């Protein structure tokens, strides 16, 4: 397969800190997962690939073109950034429409494109509310909509599922699958293997700025399952939730969190557990607000891979 995204001998330094270290990576069309613990260099890689940063060494090309200050290429590329930043005073629709206009669309085109993108991410109902009143899930959906609004050929998603509720998570996974089916190439980063696995079997593993491995997710999956998977669930009635979860055979342990109204679940069967989540989120009185996976387990796997 020919590469859509090509990194050749790319290094990126921030002063004395190395963001990426001599990375050579060719990513073909389709959906690719970019996996690594926090600080692995995933965001640096995505910022380099979208032309926000210049490599200290090496070359980065997307669709065969240099990415730095290439506005023509930007019409073919979309990014859903990790940072939770918006023009808070705008409505969701206004924000996405403005992004469409910034991509060179006329007013009617931009309005139609924003309607379409908001519908695609399931935000039609709330698109005329101010962003400052949005939940985390709505904000993530809106960020995804702005990345889609100009119908890019290559989409970069930086931790798109972080902090979303299970329903938003499922919906966003469906959107990405739909995009892939429509021929859009997607590079999605995460520190949670399960999220990546739901989207693609092709993964790239980064650790401390280096390429650790790339290939089929199944090969590292076995390693992951040796380590308990830790998932944090945040909701108001977390004690009731704990009572419900304690009866589940796939739950190995439950720990209450001091810092927020939530609990941390340990499981060696994350697939089974995640499959149960949407139903749990909708169950009476539980109202899950946030789900995220701590990356300690992944860190352990990376240590293993690096030392192998």
């Amino acid at each position, binding site marked *: 397969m020919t590469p859509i995204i090509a990194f050749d001998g790319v290094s990126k330094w921030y002063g004395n800190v190395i963001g990426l270290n001599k990375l050579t990576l060719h990513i073909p069309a389709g959906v690719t997962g970019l996996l690594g613990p926090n600080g692995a260099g995933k965001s640096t890689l995505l910022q380099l690939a979208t032309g*926000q940063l210049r490599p200290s060494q090496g070359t980065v*090309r997307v*669709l065969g073109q240099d990415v730095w200050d290439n506005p023509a290429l930007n019409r*073919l590329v979309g990014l859903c*950034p*990790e940072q939770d930043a918006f023009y808070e*005073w705008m409505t969701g629709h206004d924000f996405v429409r403005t992004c469409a206009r*910034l991509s060179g669309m006329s007013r009617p085109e931009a309005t139609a494109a924003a309607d379409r993108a908001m519908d695609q991410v399931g935000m039609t109902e709330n698109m005329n509310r101010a962003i400052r009143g949005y939940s985390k899930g709505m904000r993530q959906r809106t960020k995804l909509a702005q990345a889609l609004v100009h119908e890019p050929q290559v989409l970069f998603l930086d931790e798109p599922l972080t902090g979303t509720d299970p329903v938003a998570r499922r919906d966003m996974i469906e959107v990405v699958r739909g995009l892939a089916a429509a021929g859009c190439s997607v590079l999605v980063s995460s520190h949670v293997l399960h999220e990546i696995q739901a989207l693609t079997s092709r993964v790239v593993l980064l650790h401390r700025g280096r390429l650790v491995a790339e290939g089929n997710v199944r090969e590292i999956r076995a390693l992951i399952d040796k380590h308990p998977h830790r998932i944090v669930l945040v909701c108001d009635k977390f004690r009731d939730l704990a009572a419900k979860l304690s009866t589940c055979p796939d739950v190995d342990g439950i720990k209450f969190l001091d810092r927020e109204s939530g609990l941390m679940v340990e499981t060696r069967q994350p697939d089974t557990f995640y499959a149960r989540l949407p139903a749990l989120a909708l169950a009476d009185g539980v109202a899950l607000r946030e789900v995220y996976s701590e990356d300690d387990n992944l860190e352990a796997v990376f240590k293993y891979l690096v030392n192998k």
Partner: protein
Amino acid sequence: MTAVEVSPLRRGSSGALSALAALFMLTVRQHTHGRRVLVLGVLYLLPCVLALILRNLARPAPGDALELALVFVLLPHGLAPLTALLYAAGVVSDEVEEQTLTYLLLRSVPRWQLYLTKLLATWCVTTTLVACGVMTLYLAIYAGTPEFWNEALPRAGRTVVVMALAQVGYCSLFGFLGLFTRRSLLAGIVYIVAIEGVLANINFVGRALTVVYYVRTLTLRWLDLPPEELRTCKVTWSMDDLEKLPSSGECVLILLGVGLVVSVLSALSFARTEFRMKTPGSD
């Protein structure tokens, strides 16, 4: 392996103009939202209130004295540069601080055009604010007097033009400052006090480096001040001999030219600068 090469879709010049128009409007909306515009509105109202109070004392203050103090001193020395500083210094740094710059850098607007468009929008907003301030001040000083319609109002219009030119200089300078210094507000205030405040008042060749010098020259040349007020201005500003001052055309060219050069340099620098967006996982 060979890379897949794709020719970008061409939207043509109308697409580029549409993107620039959207960026311009976005910047105007950013500037007119939030507390900054309210704070400045209050600051502009204070001298108006002061003028109204002084006009209504048992011995009212003369209009020309109020005009000199509030329109020709307070405005170009204080309010106008402060307005430019508050907006222009943050034209990029606010976007970086709020992490919204990503949304702009990833669109089809070349970086240098992005900076210049944002600066142009900033100039429009600050000039509008200053123009409103000038008109309100003239209204507060001269409303109800015989000279209001025939003298004060045309002078207010010409003052707006002079202040618009001043804003070209101030916005470009503070935009430049915002790109190169982290503490641009502090640096800007130091600049306003030391350069536009102190240096401009020293009768020395160095004052030709200040914006206020050209504002004063244009004030003397363009505003058709009453003879007594003109004499007071000349003495106060140590600009007795009009022959030795630059012509109106030179003043306009210098303000516009320097503004343009500084803005283009800033835009080129912006185009080459990396802006790393901090993520939750980054240091």
